């Protein structure tokens, strides 16, 4: 038997204490949607509007892996990568360079609902820099995700990786469209 591992996001609550842990592996029609609200509902509410000038941003998202079941000994070597193709002109998705510890590194997403989220480097206390994901994190150059559990590995059900913190920026040069979905991949080794 092997481990059951799913992709989760945290939202709501307060700094260091998210009120919702949601398994987004079964979200439909996509697992995750960037929006101007702090929730994981995949709908067309709270969309990111194209600004006349400047940038509108999604609320940031805390994404991580969690072991939800199975029999296994340990999981480590967790990586994230994209398929490399971005959303097009004026749309940027960034990930924080740091990978904050689950719960203690959680910072409640902030902004003005329906308009724009606050920029993560200036407003998320655990993120000091960010990197665009599609051009930088592909199979040949994945982003490593740290583990703060004992021993630096996942060896029990309910243990998690640290967070990846994502945010989408939409600039005035973006074109209004129903954008195609993008596939992101999480990779891990298990014994």
């Amino acid at each position, binding site marked *: 038997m*092997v481990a059951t591992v799913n992709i989760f996001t945290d939202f709501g609550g307060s700094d260091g204490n998210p009120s919702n842990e949601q398994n987004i592996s079964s979200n439909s029609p996509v697992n995750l949607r960037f929006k101007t609200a702090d929730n994981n509902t995949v709908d067309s509410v709270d969309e990111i509007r194209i600004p006349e000038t400047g940038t509108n941003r999604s609320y940031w998202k805390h994404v991580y892996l969690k072991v939800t079941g199975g029999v*296994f000994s340990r999981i480590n070597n967790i990586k994230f990568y994209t398929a490399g193709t971005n959303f097009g002109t004026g749309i940027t998705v960034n990930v924080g360079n740091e990978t904050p510890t689950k719960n203690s590194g959680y910072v409640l997403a902030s902004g003005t609902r329906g308009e724009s989220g606050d920029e993560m480097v200036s407003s998320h206390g655990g993120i000091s820099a960010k990197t665009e994901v599609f051009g930088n994190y592909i199979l040949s150059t994945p982003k490593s995700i740290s583990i703060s559990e004992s021993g630096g590995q996942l060896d029990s059900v309910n243990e998690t990786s640290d967070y990846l913190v994502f945010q989408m920026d939409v600039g005035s040069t973006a074109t209004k469209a129903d954008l195609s979905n993008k*596939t992101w991949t*999480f*990779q891990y080794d298990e*014994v």
Partner: protein
Amino acid sequence: MMRFNETLKWLAIIDDGTKIREENSKFSELDGKNIKLFRLYSTKNGKEYNFDIGSGRKLIFARRNMISQNSKEMIVICGWYEGDYMRVMFIFKDGSYEIKEEWKEGTIYSKVI
């Protein structure tokens, strides 16, 4: 339907002859033991892959998982290293495999840690 590499289970023979099987053991039970032979075998068709480990070699084993929207792929990685020399088999879902004698970082053949 299970993919071929999902049917692979391991069996380890320790230097005192004891057999430890995945069906009733966790991999961590091999920690600190001197493994003489490590075997992968298919519960579907009985196909076997044997890895002579012995005293000088260190076992390498992992299931490398890739999960994304509506998809989960897995590669079985098994082999050994001895000093600077290594020999590792990557077994894919259809039963095909590749053997590497060095890690290739930035690919699915990157290092098992």
